């Protein structure tokens, strides 16, 4: 069974973008809240 994370599927292509965007959004939010 192939590791699903390694799949070149739509889910995989989108998921790294969503992860990158979410980390950046939550980091900005954290800085805003704790400033």
């Amino acid at each position, binding site marked *: 069974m*192939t590791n699903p994370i390694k799949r*070149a599927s*739509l889910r995989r292509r989108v998921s790294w973008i*969503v992860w990158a965007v979410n980390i950046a959004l939550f980091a900005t*939010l954290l800085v*805003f809240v704790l400033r």
Partner: protein
Amino acid sequence: MKPFFLIVVYLGAVTLPLILSAAVGGPPREWHQELASGLGILAFSMILMEFILSGRFKAISNGVGMDVTMRFHQIMARMALVFALVHPFLYQETPSGGPRPWDPTRELTLTTDFSAILSGIGAFLLLPSLVILAIGRTQLDYKYETWRLMHGVGALLIALLLLNHTIYGGRYGSEPVMTWVWLAMTGVAVGSLLMVYLWVPLQQKARAWRVVSVNQLTPKQWELSVEPEGHGGLDYKAGQFLWLNVGHSPFSLKENPFSICSAPAEGPRVSFMIKELGDFTRTVGQIESGTLAYLDGPYGNLSVDGRAEPGVALIAGGVGLAPLLGILRQMRATNDPRKVRLIYGNRVIDQIAYREELGTEDVVYVLSEPPDNWEGEFGFIDGALIDRVFSEEEFSEWVFVMCGPAPMMDVVEDHLIKRGTPSHHILSERFSYD
């Protein structure tokens, strides 16, 4: 545009109001009130960016792919919904009321201005409805154009309500700089709607097309061809798709996405392979030659132009042949030196389209319900079949392009990765995004 650049632009636009709010919005309050405002601000800017992620901007969808754009649009909409729904509850126990002379920066009190609260409540109720209707679109069985109209009008209404709520109800939004920022961002979002529904149709009107043939390929598949009406035609790459409107005003919402199955090298005529599935496709056979048509496109990044791999593997299921046929035709018309091999799967023999044109050289036909005298491959397009068709060297060196039902694409993608095909050698574009 490159994906990385697009992501940076997206992040910059979404976080700009939050960063500016921190810079101009007075002293910070308790953490839960700041979190409440922060979530509200992010939700609004994410909702405004959803307009730009609607899939109709080529700079975006041709950069990362239409399927990625649409899936990202869906996921970010759900996140914005959660942010928006959570945000009012985090203000709990904050004193509320009108302006207080001893609290000029509204550090201590929340507004209770009725109209600003009401617009927020309106958006609070509309936003989940919009998202739920979008998620359940196929189950609810709306006509495609009805759903699009509802989605566009609903989104516009939510954006305007949120603009009012943010400017008049928000502590940060009421700062003059922020008011201008929100007005500008909402203007861009609304402008994007005007562009899609007014500007693009106006351009289409000046570049009309005419249906020149409608041929029945198989019992349920048709080829529809159009030619430009007094203009140079379409600048596209084999494998791309566009929005086709046949027999309606360019301002009509009655347009559907179809892959182009012709090749740019063959001339200005553009052809589509269409399977009878929904409202429009069931009536394709009744379209008469001479009917006016309008095209919006091309979209998508399913193209092998300029790629360095020595061979091109095309894997098609059913009507998924359309974009791959375009690629094959382009390669044949330009005497492309790269090797090419097509796997074309169907359920029964009657569903095989373009059999004469495709020929037998470099084409592997697969039937899941073959007739008794069938000598080709049978079963589904799976790992075992792909192993019979491609060598180890081809797995690692060729580019694999696929289009077909989602389960087929999953199986093929999994198998290619297992065989060592680098993921950047696998091209696929899905036309259902969930």
